[in-house]
């Protein structure tokens, strides 16, 4: 239905929508995050879910203690190399459709601990991240903004066609390889299908 006709009908008090619109509207307003905090950013995440900032306004106050019931993983804090396999495994155990918010400087890049031998330089090396939030730690408003950004992303995902999201493609995987502890680093150091080291162009 074209936009003009829709507006014309709306002026007459007739509201029209699509199945896709209703489906995504329901999805975007009932995102259940995984109850999962790694470091100081988790404190800001807790503050976001409390009365002052009230994540419940967006239908996302139901933090689930099991990945089987969660739609959203908020990676809140420093991901150490010891923890990275567990994070990836938890992501794999979440049912589709699933989303990831990388919260704070550590989760997106390693942050102030980037030079540490035991710190993963960004969780997007292993799992697909939908929204990155910079900040150390980001304020609850920043997490709310990331959440609204994610809602916009969910609302714009088509149900059919070639541009439909990963979970609607039956042949695309839902699990990502879990890194193993190697002699000096995680093996592999990143998932090449998701992230590749920026190449330095010379000359």
């Amino acid at each position, binding site marked *: 239905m074209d936009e003009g006709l829709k507006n014309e009908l709306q002026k007459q008090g007739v509201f029209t929508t699509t199945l896709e619109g209703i489906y995504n509207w329901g999805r975007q307003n009932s995102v259940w995050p995984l109850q999962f905090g790694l470091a100081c950013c988790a404190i800001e995440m807790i503050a976001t879910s409390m009365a002052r900032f009230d994540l419940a306004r967006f239908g996302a106050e139901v933090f689930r203690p099991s*990945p089987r019931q969660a739609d959203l993983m908020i990676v809140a804090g420093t991901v150490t190399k010891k923890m990275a396999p567990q*994070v990836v*495994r*938890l992501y794999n*155990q979440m049912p*589709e459709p699933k989303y990831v918010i990388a919260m704070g400087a550590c989760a997106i890049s390693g942050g102030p601990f980037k030079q540490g031998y035991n710190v993963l330089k960004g969780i997007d090396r292993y799992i697909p991240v939908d929204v990155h939030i910079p900040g150390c730690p980001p304020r609850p408003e920043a997490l709310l903004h990331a959440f609204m950004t994610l809602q916009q992303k969910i609302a714009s995902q088509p149900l059919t066609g070639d541009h439909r999201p990963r*979970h609607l493609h039956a042949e695309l995987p839902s*699990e990502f390889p879990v890194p193993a502890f190697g002699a000096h680093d995680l093996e592999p150091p990143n998932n090449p299908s998701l992230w590749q080291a920026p190449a330095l162009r010379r000359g």
Partner: protein
Amino acid sequence: MPGEYSPYLFVVTMVIAAVAFAATPLLLAWLWAQKYSPNKPGPDKNATYECGLESKGDAWIQFKAEYYLYGIIFLIFDVETIFLLPFAVAFTGLGAGAFVAMAVFILLLVEGLAWAWMKGVLTWK
């Protein structure tokens, strides 16, 4: 027969409506999932534990039975302490009957302890 009053018609109608009310959303969700939620199982997703760690080892391990005897002896003397304390506090004001009753109680427990000692329960093997 038309016009005949059946008192159970209401119950039958109610049962059908109730079942349909519960089953229709389930059926619709199932139909939707057929098209818009492809099944994607995997080794991690089907894993038993959901804490992020891999389970390892065997669940069929044996616990030492000696711990059970240790536990029960501890429990008995733990309870005895609770009785001994008021007994000690009120000792000077008690009659001979109360003293004999308490002595029998303690002797019974000490006998049990001596038995456990002789059986070798108190040495952890």
